[in-house]
């Protein structure tokens, strides 16, 4: 099409490089899936992309050690309410800060900006002490309730509210005599829903994958969330001796988040893009 051979060759090389990189992103997952169906001895002898026959055996070794689905259930018990509370209350706060003039509004917004910059480790020890004092060790409350106050989410949704919500809508509702909370639920929430959904998905992934805090707060095996449970694999001699079982555990642990990604990848990409442009 009028391009020189050099141009086409270069373009082809660029595509090849991009595909190789894409394969590099997927290779560990491919090996994981294949190795989950092979015995430890097979894995240490050779590598292949053809599945083996040891899936059942690996499954038994793994489930003799722990029931990974209990970890998944626990992770859901934490991540779902935390995400829902975080989404709802962040929207509520963001709307309150964006559309109401009251004393302290700017102070709260300033505090939000400051806490977005403060690294989480600064509160870790105080947070743990607080939980001990309130007898919240081994409870999911410290993993769920703090989601109500998520500075980053509020900041994002406040900017989103200012750009997406026309003040005239709220005024019209007031003239019609609609109560403020009613307007929030019936008018504001639906308009903000794309922004809220974006934040909620990122929040869910963050909550689901969170490791350090649940590890510190939860000490009973039956309470462990998935990442904490996965971390105990190291302690199991049977699993460590059989690589196939380890691969199977990792493979099962990855499935839920991959499902989330399949359905919501558009939101995820747009939220990162939005974060970049805002920053």
């Amino acid at each position, binding site marked *: 099409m009028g391009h020189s051979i050099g141009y086409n060759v270069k373009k082809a090389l660029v595509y090849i490089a991009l595909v190789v990189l894409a394969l590099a992103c997927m290779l560990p997952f491919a090996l994981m899936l294949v190795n989950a169906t092979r015995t430890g001895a097979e894995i240490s002898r050779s590598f292949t992309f053809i599945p083996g026959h040891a899936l059942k055996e690996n499954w038994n070794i793994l489930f003799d050690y722990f029931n990974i689905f209990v970890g998944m259930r626990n992770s859901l018990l934490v991540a779902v309410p935390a995400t829902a509370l975080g989404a709802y209350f962040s929207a509520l*706060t963001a709307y309150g800060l964006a559309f109401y003039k009251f004393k302290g509004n700017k102070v709260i917004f300033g505090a939000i900006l400051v806490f977005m910059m403060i690294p989480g480790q*600064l*509160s870790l020890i105080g947070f*743990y002490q607080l939980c001990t004092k309130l007898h919240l060790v081994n409870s999911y409350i410290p993993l769920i309730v703090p989601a*109500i106050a998520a500075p980053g989410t509020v900041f994002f949704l406040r900017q989103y509210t200012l750009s997406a919500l026309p003040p005239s809508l709220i005024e019209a509702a007031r003239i019609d005599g609609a109560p403020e909370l009613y307007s929030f639920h019936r008018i504001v929430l639906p308009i903000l829903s794309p922004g809220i959904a974006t934040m909620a998905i990122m929040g869910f992934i963050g909550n689901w*994958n969170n490791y350090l805090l649940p590890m510190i707060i939860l000490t009973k095996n039956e309470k462990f969330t998935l*990442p904490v449970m996965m971390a105990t694999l190291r302690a199991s001699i049977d699993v460590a001796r059989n*690589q196939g079982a380890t691969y199977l555990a990792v493979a099962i642990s990855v499935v839920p988040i991959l499902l989330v990604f399949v359905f919501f990848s558009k939101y995820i990409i747009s939220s990162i893009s939005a974060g970049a442009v805002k*920053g």
Partner: protein
Amino acid sequence: MSNKPTVRKHNKLTAYNRWGYVFVAPFVIVFLIFSVYPVLRTLYLSFTDLKVMGDAHIIGFANYKRVVLDKFFWISLWNTVRIWIVNIVLQLGLAFLLMMVFSDMKYKIQGLAAFRIIYYLPNLIAATSVAFLFATLLDWRYGTFNVMLNAIYKLFGAHYNPVDWLGNPATAGHTIAVIQAWMWFGNSFIMLMAGVQGISKDYFEAAAIDGAGRWTIFGKITIPLLKPIMMYVAITSLIGGLQMFDLPFLMGNKASGSYNSIQTVMMYLYKFGFTAGTVQTGYASAVAYMLFLIILAVSIIQLKLFNPKEA
């Protein structure tokens, strides 16, 4: 800041505005209890001698002095920085290259939507899962990675001496840095790409009309306009990087010789904050604040370096 409602003067408006308190109240209450209080509590504890239980006595700056004098703190800081630098160079370098490829006007590379989804994939996986996946793949004797390398060497008639990627102090840090770059480059790429797409087309068209070449446009328009985003990516990565914990913590093996080469500041903090037998809460709190001060200082320096005019 445009947070002004458009209707003014009405007395009724003041009544409406009072609702603002209702809207922000849950946030403020939870924020004070679970964010502000813990941060202040940690600050207080950093000046005390609290061990695990018992009473805390104020001991002034003794904990901070001890942090400054403990060579293991500085070793952990150096480990963290070393791993972070390798990680960020790879991660941002790769993201930058990809951004160049996909924003190039001459070759017009297609498929951005599909590629960035695949590149982003490793970001999603919990660090614990990534840690076990790679620890198993990279196992010295039985891991698939060395088995693959061995097969490739054999193909060329060479002999492969298995490398203990995570167990050898010389390679462990770099290995973790590469895994982290693998995890996060897709995220940086999407951010840079969003930045490029946010640049008004007018600039590019005007430059093209003036006869500027691709490289001139790239150097004179794209790069300067991308600076704030690269800045943002670098600072957030540094703040995150200095708190590096999950991967080195899970992949390091105390029994192997590499542990001291990958112990990060957060692992050091964890040891004194939460590991049974070594808990010294007051000291760990001081470590947390030392790390915070370091992050603060480096962020300010970074800001000044990148934006000499604005800072």
